[in-house]
């Protein structure tokens, strides 16, 4: 279980005292894959505005294009039509200054230690060793992995690997953190703990977070806003606000408000199945 590495909240210092958050604007974005026989519409006319500092969860069944949309925000895939801008400027290629990405499998480099993995994006741009190390230390402390820097990924539990991955996403202090089903491979308990941890990190840093999942509970539990998508063609079918108070607690999961929100999302998903 990854939770045993948790640090008491008091020990955590945010990366920077002034939170830096980003605004994302997705305007009528479409994506068409051409195959030899036909054109497949993966995304159709998706528009979405994410205000700075918000925690937005995109949820939907597989094939609804939620990951594709996220990859466009990350600059890892180009849309066929429409625009994606972050802080006013279009995203045409990966821009680690504006966006950090956390993937489903932690995708840490197995030959590097946790620390070196977190330093990796800094090393790519030739940041000096001492500065790199200091920033990596800060980021690891932020995710509650102080003292685990010298370990290799195979010596870390699934939850801890995802913490390293989050630290790597945050180490350059980008205004936006994109997360592609980051907890999908974790067991239920670790997943709950990691959700709380993520919310704590989000609160401490004030980033804009876009989080993709197919778990309805996770979506409602984490989000300020939930975007529901539906497949064939991939499109947005709902965009709802989550009026639950923060910090979120385990008790809310069995509350009426929580249930109503989850039901509403479920009805969309059932319809598209």
């Amino acid at each position, binding site marked *: 279980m990854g939770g045993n590495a948790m640090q008491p909240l008091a020990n955590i210092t945010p990366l920077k005292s002034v939170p830096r958050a980003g605004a994302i604007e997705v305007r009528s974005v479409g994506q068409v894959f051409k195959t030899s026989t036909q054109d497949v519409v993966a995304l159709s006319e998706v528009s979405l505005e994410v205000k700075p500092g918000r925690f937005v969860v995109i949820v939907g069944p597989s094939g609804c294009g939620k990951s594709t949309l996220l990859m466009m925000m*990350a*600059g*890892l895939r180009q849309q066929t039509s429409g625009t994606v801008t972050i802080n006013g400027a279009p995203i045409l290629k*990966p*821009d*680690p200054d504006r*966006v950090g*990405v956390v*993937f*489903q*499998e932690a*995708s*840490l*480099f*197995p*030959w590097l230690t946790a620390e070196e993995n977190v330093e*990796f*994006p800094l*090393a*790519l*741009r030739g940041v000096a060793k001492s500065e790199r190390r200091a920033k990596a230390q800060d980021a690891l402390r932020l995710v509650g992995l102080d003292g685990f820097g010298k370990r*290799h*990924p*195979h010596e870390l539990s699934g939850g801890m690997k995802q913490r390293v991955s989050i630290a*790597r996403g945050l180490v350059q202090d980008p205004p936006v953190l994109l997360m592609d089903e980051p907890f999908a491979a974790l067991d239920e308990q670790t997943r709950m703990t990691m959700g709380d941890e993520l919310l704590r990190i989000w609160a401490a840093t004030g980033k804009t977070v876009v989080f993709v999942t197919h778990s309805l509970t996770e979506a409602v539990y984490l989000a300020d806003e939930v975007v529901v998508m539906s497949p064939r063609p991939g499109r947005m079918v709902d965009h709802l606000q989550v009026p639950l108070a923060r910090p979120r607690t385990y008790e809310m999961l069995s509350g009426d408000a929580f249930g109503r929100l989850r039901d509403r999302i479920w009805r969309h998903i059932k319809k598209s199945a």
Partner: protein
Amino acid sequence: MTARALRRLIVMGLIVLWEVLPRSGAIPELFLPSLSSTLLSGWNEAAEYRQALAVTLSEVAISFAFACGGGILFGAVVGSLPRPRILIMPMISSLYAVPLVILYPVFTVWFGIGPESKIAFAAIYGFLPTMLSTAAGIQTIDPQLLLAARSMGATLSQRLVRVIIPAAIPTVLSGLRVGGALVIVGVVVSEMLISSAGIGYLISRYRTILDTPHVFAGVLLVLAMAVAFNAAIKWIERRCAIWRTGTQGGQRAAREITASPLQPAT
């Protein structure tokens, strides 16, 4: 008794039998000379064996350099370009079925019976596994790692140096282990077939005069060479053990390469 202890016992038993059976006459000394007489006859002709070993080792070293260089280069190209890979890989693995030893007479006609023909033959012998596993190593790199690197703004050359090469190292190493073993076999076999120097030549020459202890001394020397080479590569592999354990793709690839009987060490 632990498996390990029993295994040691078996090995020791075999060594003792090697000494006792020929001595007692249960096996004619012509078929199998006792261990002590083998070692002794090797020791008596130490200078000759040393000279032969030097010849063989130099041929092995040069062939290994060719086999590895060519194998890694060609494997990297084929592994990273999907079109040539789909086209060529099945053809290359069909080539695996051909007993390459039939090429050696061709090389002796082309290059004479000196070291050149042996180097050419052994290099080709070791080339295939090195190439195949390098290609597999590159091909099985976890695409998530490359995507992650790209999301952090890595350029093509940074991806090559910082992701592709380190990720491919374990599979390339196992290819080198198999390739190196085959290079040793290739050199020794070609020396045994037609040659005028090297350990293989010594083995063959002593065989024709039915001097079995000297034949076995040569056999032991080749065995020692193969074992030493294997141990050296294993040592390097252990030092890079961390590479292996990481991604699922890498683990799967490493398992496939080591498990697949890519090693016609005839």
